[in-house]
């Protein structure tokens, strides 16, 4: 290989390394995915989602099985959360979804508890059993309010 051939090879390697870095950032860090179809897509309506964000985790027994793909407001002013779950995951129709917080200040995530029914959820189905996010301020407010009522009695 002559000198300019070697140089071309090095330049080619450099460009490949740069593109690989962009691909790593986009796919692994940025979460861009081209395999949109195929996964199990479900949605669930919540009264309160707290600080839940898209791309938050969906877990079963603490194991990550998917992520939040969309959050929209439906016509009844409830939060409609789209879940994008791993393909091949089999969930019964009486699966319930709850919003939890990782630690005191951590991120919100959704935890699924599979039920015992024989029939399975299909892509596009709704998870009917939901438990909304716990808002700390609201709970404290309720506690103070209740305490006040008790004293009056």
């Amino acid at each position: 290989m002559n000198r300019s051939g070697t140089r071309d090879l090095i330049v080619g390697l450099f460009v490949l390394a740069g593109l690989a870095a962009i691909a790593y950032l986009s796919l692994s860090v940025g979460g861009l995915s081209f395999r949109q179809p195929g996964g199990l897509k479900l949605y669930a309506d919540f009264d309160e989602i707290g600080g839940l964000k898209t791309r938050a985790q969906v877990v079963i027994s603490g194991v990550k099985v998917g992520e939040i793909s969309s959050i929209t407001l439906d016509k009844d002013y409830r939060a409609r959360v789209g879940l994008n779950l791993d393909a091949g995951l089999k969930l019964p129709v009486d699966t319930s979804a709850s919003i939890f917080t990782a630690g005191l200040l951590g991120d919100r995530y959704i935890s699924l508890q599979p039920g015992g029914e024989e029939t399975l959820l299909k892509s596009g189905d709704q998870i009917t059993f939901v438990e909304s996010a716990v808002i700390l301020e609201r709970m404290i407010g309720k506690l103070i309010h209740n305490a006040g009522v008790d004293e009056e009695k």
Partner: protein
Amino acid sequence: MNLVRSLGTVTIGFVEELGRLAAFSAHMARCVITPPIRLRPFIEEVFKLGVLSLIIICVCGVAVGAVLGLQGYNTLVTFGATQSLGAVVGLSLVRELGPVLTALLATGRAGSATAAEIGTMVATEQLDGLRMMSVDPVHFVITPKALAMIVVMPLLSALFIVSGLFGGYLVGVHLMGVDPGSYMNSLQSAVDFSDDILGSLLKALVFGVLVGLIATYRGYKSEPTSAGVSAATTSTVVIASVSILIFDYFITALWGV
């Protein structure tokens, strides 16, 4: 009165300079699409500007990531939120530090060299020689340099960010004992493709255009003396650095990246 007059002179000079830069850019844009395509000098320039900057970019990337990891850890540990270290390191690198520091490093490493090279060609009348042979020096010498800078900048910026993430991981996980899973997890959930990565690449591309244009323009218009070449090099570094930071603010303000 004199003060107002000198203000007017400065303003007119600035606008004239801007106009000349625009005309120069338009000339260069025409050269890009006019055959013959100068592939060989372009590849040579990618080698000089990109491959030779690789080591400084990767070393600085790892160092900046490591510092971010250390600083972020020391701040977060007071809130007991060290599991968010990945988000701190990742977002700072992807949105700001990656493109900006890469552009500043490339200005110092490659932009100044480009300006000095073209300036020397002007001083030794090599460009006039080309003109005499009815070869357009902008087409033959300058366009490949600017184009290579534009192509190289996003690649270098991405490599800088990846090195930085590695440096942050090294310090955060191996030195400070943050859980590797929560580092990667907070990194991945904080950084979004369309919001952050695309914005980062856009910034790097804009900075590449800025540095490429300013370096070649200052070199091309330099005085044909040794003092002129040194002035061209200095003004390239100064103008490019300042405009990178100013453009960075406006890109962030307008597109929120």
